[in-house]
């Protein structure tokens, strides 16, 4: 099994990364909303400016047209040709909104607004002081010049994109600033575990070797019981040590896959944990069939050890552990405290523990997950709170191919 050094040292915990992404997501949304609002107000102001320019021009046109209407009014009906101008189209409406004459392209008029856009035209409404020809409303229409619109859109796009990039960089910097203490703590914890693990190796080996070397026949019953308790404690520490060693010191090692007899391995690990089971007066029920698997013994041992040690650790005193092995699956069931539905989806995350009453660092199942994922196996946990938990490892198909 291999893992890059940067991954080992620089990646956050999944939950931390989730928090970071959530923060950045919300931040990006707010930033885009802010830029959108600023863009909208900028567009509004540019539109007002453009309309102001139109207003001045169209007012001049309207003044010219009013003079012509005045002349026509005075000479009607001898002259009845409505005045036209190449620069604009126009229309006159009476006080009751009845059209008197129109050359407008766009007939959707709005006599309530002074100047407005309709279709691709700008229309300007001038209310006459004298109703020449009965006209109260004079409408001047010109095609809209879209130059300002394109220029405004380009400005919004350019500055908006720039602002988005800048604000996102600031957001990223802030996010990193906020999570830095957490990241620092995790790295510190990792470093601490590494150092501690390294220091544990020699004394733990010495304790286990010496326990093995003591002949129980040559000591009193009391001392034999004490020795048994020391043995249980030492093996518990040994399991923890192996996990820590794997998690901190050996995860970058290349795997050495060999053909494993799973039944032999499981029996061997059951034997190792026998003394721990006895200490909690647990009953072991086994149904072990021959099974083979191609994998690194060291890694599969970690999987089996963690499943067994959890089944012991979280079992009730006097409870039962059932181990069932077939060619394709390994089941480890306990009659312990169970796992709450809230915790169940997170049990394979690092530093997640079933409850606070038992010891441990919460790294065992994260190691199991990493190994299972590496070999393309599948593992699932079925639990009823207060009744117990069953871990099912499906290894047959993928495991044999590796």
């Amino acid at each position, binding site marked *: 099994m291999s893992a890059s050094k940067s991954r080992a040292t620089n990646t956050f915990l999944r939950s931390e990364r989730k928090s970071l992404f959530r923060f950045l997501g919300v931040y990006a949304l707010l930033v885009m909303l802010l830029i959108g609002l600023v863009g909208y107000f900028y567009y509004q102001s540019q539109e007002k400016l453009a309309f102001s320019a139109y207003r001045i021009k169209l007012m001049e046109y309207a003044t010219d047209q009013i003079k012509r209407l005045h002349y*026509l*009014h005075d000479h*009607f*009906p001898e002259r*009845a*040709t*409505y005045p036209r101008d190449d620069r604009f189209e126009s229309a006159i409406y*009476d*006080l*009751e909104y*009845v059209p*008197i*004459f129109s050359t407008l392209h766009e007939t959707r008029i709005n006599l309530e607004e002074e100047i407005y856009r309709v279709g691709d035209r700008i229309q300007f409404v001038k209310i006459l002081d*004298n*109703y*020449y*020809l*009965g*006209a*109260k409303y004079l409408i001047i229409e010109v095609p809209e010049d879209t130059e300002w619109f394109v220029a405004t859109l380009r400005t919004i796009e350019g500055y908006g994109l720039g602002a988005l990039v800048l604000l996102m960089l600031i957001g990223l910097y802030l996010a990193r600033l906020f999570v830095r203490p957490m990241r620092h703590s995790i790295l510190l914890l990792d470093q601490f575990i590494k150092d501690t693990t390294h220091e544990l190796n020699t004394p733990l080996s010495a304790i286990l070797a010496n326990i093995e070397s003591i002949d129980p026949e040559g000591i009193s019953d009391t001392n034999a019981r004490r020795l048994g308790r020391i043995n249980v404690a030492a093996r518990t520490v040994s399991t923890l040590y192996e996990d820590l060693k794997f998690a901190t010191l050996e995860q970058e090692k290349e795997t050495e896959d060999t053909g494993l007899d799973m039944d032999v391995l499981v029996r061997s690990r059951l034997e190792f944990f026998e003394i721990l089971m006895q200490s909690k007066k647990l009953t072991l029920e086994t149904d072990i069939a021959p099974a083979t698997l191609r994998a690194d013994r060291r890694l599969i041992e970690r999987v089996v050890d963690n499943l067994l040690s959890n089944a012991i650790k979280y079992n009730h005193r006097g409870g039962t552990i059932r181990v069932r092995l077939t060619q394709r699956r390994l089941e480890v069931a306990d009659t312990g405290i169970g796992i709450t539905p809230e915790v169940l989806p997170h049990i394979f995350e690092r530093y997640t523990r079933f409850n606070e009453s038992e010891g441990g660092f919460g790294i065992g199942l994260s190691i199991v997950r990493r190994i299972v994922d590496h070999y393309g196996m599948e593992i699932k946990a079925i639990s009823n709170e207060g009744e117990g938990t069953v871990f099912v490892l499906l290894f047959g198909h993928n495991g044999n191919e590796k």
Partner: protein
Amino acid sequence: MRYTKRVGCATAHHQNTRNQNGVQQHTLRGLMAILLITATLSAQDTFDRVCVTCHIEQKISLRQTFMNALLVYSGRENMKAGLKYFLRHPRRDSSVMGEAFLDKYGLAKPLTIDDATLDEALDIYWKRYTVQGKLH
């Protein structure tokens, strides 16, 4: 329009010539005259009867008064309402005509014809002189 005028008095000169031309000839002429007058009267609409005759007599252009009213009232209904009120209660300050015009022709007397006739006359006035539909 305030200037109502009685039109068409019956002729009676046939009584003076009864003995000279005979009864039948005079009776025929009388009938023809009555028919002519009746035909002339029936060819005139309410507006002609109520307004035009007097305006012609006074030499006041109905076109000019209409265009002046149009400058002030703009729309059909507004003009009808405005003129109706003015014709019922004529005042210098509510007239659409200028001071010089009023000095020359004076202010009209209040109209006393019934509402329906006045409305009809004003409708015809609008239709006859309106600008709408006459520009090109």
